[in-house]
């Protein structure tokens, strides 16, 4: 078991191997083999994550830093003293992320075998998914910000590839998909700029990028506390032993044994023995804050606290990009253009939580940067309510879920803002379960709708060879059928019972109904916000509390609206009437995730609630995370808040049922009941138009940018640079010089010389050719003449000697 952490490179390598196999051999292997390889690679990663978890709980949650045998010195600049190793960190936080990523990811891999069946690029899809695993696991296992950045960019790449996976759809769908991919890429670049700036600042400030150096204790407070407890226990035991009739040498033996133990392994409970510059960034932060520190920027220097605020703000910018917060959340709804398993895995469960993970990982920074914390809380809460509001007005089943995801990510970010890091992680875990469930459920619905559509329109010749996701089976059809539009659904409860029940569980979990997972995690965030306001005089806490409460109301409302539109009522189209239940390979992951959504909340049940803590333990996730998250703390259960939030959710559900239920899901053809009521119509259309957010961006940034680009391209580059500069100055100058060189120089001197030589050769050849008579005897005479001359020359010394 001690060797388990050495397996951590494999968690990255196995999906990499799976990716390579599927990429190069996939098209020849066939769907079945590709699916098995991809899922097995994911499953093996999950197995390793479980092994690492087992290691941690059996070794006092001690973090382990692993240097893979290769890539040991990743980036080394000896002159600059820079040494960034490729180190992988196994601690409670990273293992939590690994478990979520690989666990949910494995289920989604299995689901995708069924969902992507028949796709011409099946193997490529699975190799992308495995590649995503590689980068996501690099992101969470890295021990420094640079590895995090590598993973961060890698998952961004995979996200781009998978959003635009169906780039070749017809009827403009392909354009939409690829534009969505580009949008995600570009918007994320803005966030990546922030992250890069933060990394540069960190490196400048601390001289390292490591979270914690090997051997450093991540949470010295906790370690000392535990040491004290152990000591107290020991003393208590010793006190008990004094009363007992103990023999003298027995006590001696104990002390001797202790002394030996102490001599053998010096157990540190803090990092005081490590020099400041050899600590990781977080350890250094605490030292700097204790001792006071100015960061030298050359011409000027800033107090360390200010630098910390800058770092955290830049990081926040990165997080708003990756985790889809205001102002950069606009890419995530469009990202639903990708296949549904991708939406579930990347754009709901794992990748978008990378920003939250980063902020939780950097909790030491955020905890000590109050200004940033306030901003974070406001952004998170604002995102939660804005996205929740927009979700009310959407028709696309996946788009609703996308805004829901943004909203829930807002909850997590707000939790970070109010200092509830463990609550953020808790919500991250539970949200991964039920949002993956909801997405996969919606995928199942879409799948069923497409089947139903084919079935309804292919009475005569049912084409069974495969079900293309593209609706281009009927090119003569005027209006493409949208399998994702909830207006086309309804009454699917009876057609797809398993999907319905699992979806219901997911909805209730998301809405925060007791005892589903969402109830516990959302309640913890609300309670933490309230407590932060109450005890820390944190204004942001109050604001966040209020906004999140409202967002929770919206959540329950739009989710139940969706339930009514999709599953209840009567089928509104032939496709909905004929939609079949999905294959077992898709339903099994749904059932597993439904179970997790039901029970996931009990991993962190608060103390003293209905005796649940005796059954599941109290604050287990918090205590688990405490070993790597310094500022994690367990919040007390706030019964009024919990009851209030629960009541609010129930009211929202009842309200939605009243509005959309009983066959009133759509009125006046296909309009929302809220849209027809004059008092709610403007609000609803605002939500339907997504608050004109994209349009505002277009006005503010894209339009001016396009005009500037056009000016630069047309006027500056083309008119001035090409037409004027190139033509007038370069072109004419060149022509002038060319003319000069051509006429007098080339024709006169160069050609004249060459032609002159030619004429000379011609003339002399004409004279010389008469020598070539062709008669051998004349040649022989010439040779003899030469021989005589040579002999004379050779024998000249003899003659001169004779003469002299």
């Amino acid at each position: 078991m001690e060797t388990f952490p050495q397996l951590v490179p494999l968690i990255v390598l196995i999906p990499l191997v799976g990716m390579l196999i599927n990429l190069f051999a996939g098209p020849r292997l066939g769907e079945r083999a590709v699916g098995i390889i991809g899922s097995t690679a994911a499953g093996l990663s999950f197995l390793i994550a479980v092994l690492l978890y087992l290691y941690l709980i059996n070794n006092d949650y001690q973090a382990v830093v692993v240097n893979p045998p290769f890539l040991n010195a990743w980036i080394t600049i000896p002159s600059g003293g820079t040494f960034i190793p490729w180190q992988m960190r196994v601690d409670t936080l990273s293992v939590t992320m690994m478990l979520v990523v690989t666990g949910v990811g494995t289920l989604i891999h299995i689901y995708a075998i069924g969902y992507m069946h028949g796709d011409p690029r099946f193997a490529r899809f699975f190799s992308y998914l495995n590649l995503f695993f590689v980068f996501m696991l690099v992101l969470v296992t890295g021990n420094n910000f640079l590895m995090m950045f590598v993973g961060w960019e890698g998952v961004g790449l995979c996200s781009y590839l998978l959003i635009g996976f169906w780039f070749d759809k017809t009827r403009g769908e392909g354009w939409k998909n690829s534009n969505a991919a580009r949008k995600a890429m570009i918007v994320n670049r803005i966030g990546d700029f922030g992250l890069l700036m933060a990394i540069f600042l960190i490196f400048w400030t601390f001289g390292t990028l490591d979270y914690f150096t090997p051997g450093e204790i991540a949470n010295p407070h906790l370690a000392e506390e535990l040491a004290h407890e152990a000591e107290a226990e020991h003393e208590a035991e010793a006190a008990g032993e004094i009363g007992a009739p103990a023999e003298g040498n027995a006590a001696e033996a104990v002390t001797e044994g202790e002394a030996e133990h102490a001599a053998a392994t010096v157990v540190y409970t803090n990092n005081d023995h490590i020099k400041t510059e050899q600590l990781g960034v977080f350890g250094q932060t605490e030292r700097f804050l204790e001792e006071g520190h100015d960061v030298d920027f050359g011409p000027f220097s800033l107090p360390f606290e200010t630098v910390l605020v800058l770092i955290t703000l830049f990081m926040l910018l990165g997080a708003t990009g990756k985790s889809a917060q205001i102002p950069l959340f606009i890419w995530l709804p469009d990202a639903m253009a990708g296949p549904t398993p991708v939406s579930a895995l990347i754009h709901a469960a794992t990748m978008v939580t990378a920003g939250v993970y980063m902020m939780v990982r950097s909790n030491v920074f955020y905890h000590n940067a109050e200004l940033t914390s306030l901003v974070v809380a406001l952004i998170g809460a604002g995102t939660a309510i804005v996205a929740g509001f927009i979700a009310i007005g959407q028709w696309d089943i996946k788009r609703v879920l996308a805004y829901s995801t943004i909203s829930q990510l807002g909850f997590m970010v707000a939790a970070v803002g109010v200092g509830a890091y463990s609550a953020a992680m808790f919500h991250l875990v539970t949200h991964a379960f039920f949002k993956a469930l909801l997405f996969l459920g919606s995928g199942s619905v879409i799948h069923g709708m497409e089947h139903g559509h084919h079935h309804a329109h292919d009475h005569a010749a049912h084409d069974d060879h495969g079900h293309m996701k593209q609706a281009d089976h009927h090119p003569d059809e005027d209006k493409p059928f949208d399998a994702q539009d909830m207006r086309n659904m309804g009454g699917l409860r009876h057609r797809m019972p398993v999907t319905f029940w699992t979806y219901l569980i997911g909805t209730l979990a998301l809405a925060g109904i007791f005892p589903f997972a969402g109830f516990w995690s959302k309640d913890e965030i609300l309670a933490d916000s309230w407590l932060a306001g109450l005890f820390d005089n944190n204004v942001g806490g109050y604001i966040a509390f209020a906004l999140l409460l409202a967002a929770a109301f919206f959540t329950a409302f739009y989710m139940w609206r969706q339930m009514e539109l999709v599953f209840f009522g009567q089928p509104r189209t032939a496709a909905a009437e004929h939609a079949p239940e999905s294959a077992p390979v898709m339903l099994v992951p749904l059932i597993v995730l439904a179970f997790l959504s039901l029970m996931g909340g009990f991993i962190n049940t608060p103390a003293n609630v209905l005796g649940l803590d005796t059954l599941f333990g109290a604050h287990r996730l918090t205590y688990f995370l405490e070993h790597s998250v310094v500022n994690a703390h367990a919040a007390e259960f706030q019964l009024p808040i919990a009851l209030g939030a629960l009541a609010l959710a129930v009211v929202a559900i009842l309200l939605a049922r009243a509005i959309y239920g009983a066959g009133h899901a759509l009125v006046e053809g296909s309009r929302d009941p809220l849209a027809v009521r004059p008092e709610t119509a403007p609000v609803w259309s605002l939500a339907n138009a997504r608050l004109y957010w994209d349009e505002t961006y277009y006005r503010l940034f894209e339009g001016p940018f396009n005009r500037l680009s056009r000016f630069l391209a047309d006027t500056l580059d083309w008119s001035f640079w090409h037409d004027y500069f190139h033509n007038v100055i370069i072109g004419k100058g060149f022509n002038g010089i060319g003319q000069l060189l051509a006429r007098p120089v080339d024709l006169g001197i160069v050609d004249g010389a060459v032609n002159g030589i030619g004429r000379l050769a011609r003339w002399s050849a004409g004279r010389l050719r008469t020598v070539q008579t062709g008669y051998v005897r004349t040649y022989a005479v010439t040779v003899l003449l030469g021989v005589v001359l040579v002999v004379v020359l050779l024998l000249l010394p003899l003659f001169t000697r004779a003469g002299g």
Partner: protein
Amino acid sequence: MTMDVALFITVGVVAVAAAVMMLLSENAVHSALFLIINFMGVAFLYLMLDAPFLTMIQIAVYAGAIMVLFLFVIMLLGAEKLGEPTRQFRWLAPVSLALALAFLVITSIAIIQGRIDLQGPATQPPALRVVNALTDAGAVDVYLNGERVAPALPFGEATEYTVLPAAAVVAVDGAEADTGREYTLTINAAGTDTALMTSPLVLASRTDRQINAYTVVAHGTSSAPQASLVSDNLETTDNRAGRLTLFNAFERPVDLWNFRSETNPDDDVAVTTDLAPGSGVELAAIPENTDLRAWAFTEAGNKEAVLFRLNNPEVYRIRRDEAQLLVFAGEHIADGTEQGSIRPVALPVASRAAADFGGPHGAGELLFTRYMLPVQLLAVLLLVAMIGAIVLTHKETFQPRRRDVRRRVAQPLTTAISAQVGQDVLQPGEETPRLPPQEDEQPQPVGD
């Protein structure tokens, strides 16, 4: 006028006359016959110049084979007579004559001015080798003129021949004079600087064609060493024989007997008798593979006292064209007594006989040693010439070949391209080929 000068003049006049007649003769067959006479004269001159081998080749190959070939071709082609001389190059004959005469005059002057015969004949510096027959000295170092020629030469062994620096030859008007030159031979015990013996030698270079080789036999004891000079006769003998020279390096005079019959003592032949210490004798040429097992060295005058029998046919053997020096010496054997004992032993020192000058033997030896590679190349050349002659005289070699009249006419490039793509690339009136227009898909805005 001596005989050979008379012969030279006669033969020379015949050769030149034959050459002139060859030139003047109108009939090609006559010319060829005159040329044969000329070649015969030259062959005779070769003989006078000590080149009998070349004489035979000249007659057999040149005057024989090659001229037969000429005659054959002349007769074959019927080209013995030429038609009317062309009137084209009247200036050629006088110019040629003038140039040829100029050439002759120049070379003659050069030859006379060069005084070839007064350049001095070739001299042969003496070559020397040393045999270690010192009774009790063991291995020795041999120095010649202070230069070590043999390190640690063991008893009974001889050094290679060392060509000594030539002695100066003063030649005045054909008179050959050689004053000789003094060389110093020094023999040290092996690895030491103490000279056992230093002996001056006076040797001369030779101007005749005789081999100028000597052997120094170092004999005696290390306390009283002696060096005896033996002149080596390395001339080849008559057919299938070898030379044998005896040298007595023993302390007492010896006889060499040939005990031809084991039974009858009267048949025994004394090869040499009473060979004094430090003296040698050259025997008459002995046929090769003569059985020397019956030969034995005896005390002088007492043929019963056999000192050493030459009964090892592997060692004591007469080989063809070999000049062997047999040194009879005493070897000191440490037998436990204070003085030790002296064991008589015959030491054979062989050397190859030199080849004769100008004969087939010498020519063959040179051709198969020094000129091996040129001979090979000549063989290849002859082979090529053979093939070339066959090819050249082959009837069809110079027949005009049938030409493929229908040359391929270059196609226009567009025709070639359209043949590749299967459709017309160029539409009439169109200047450049274009791809078919694509369906333009305009980007659609994202969203509902």
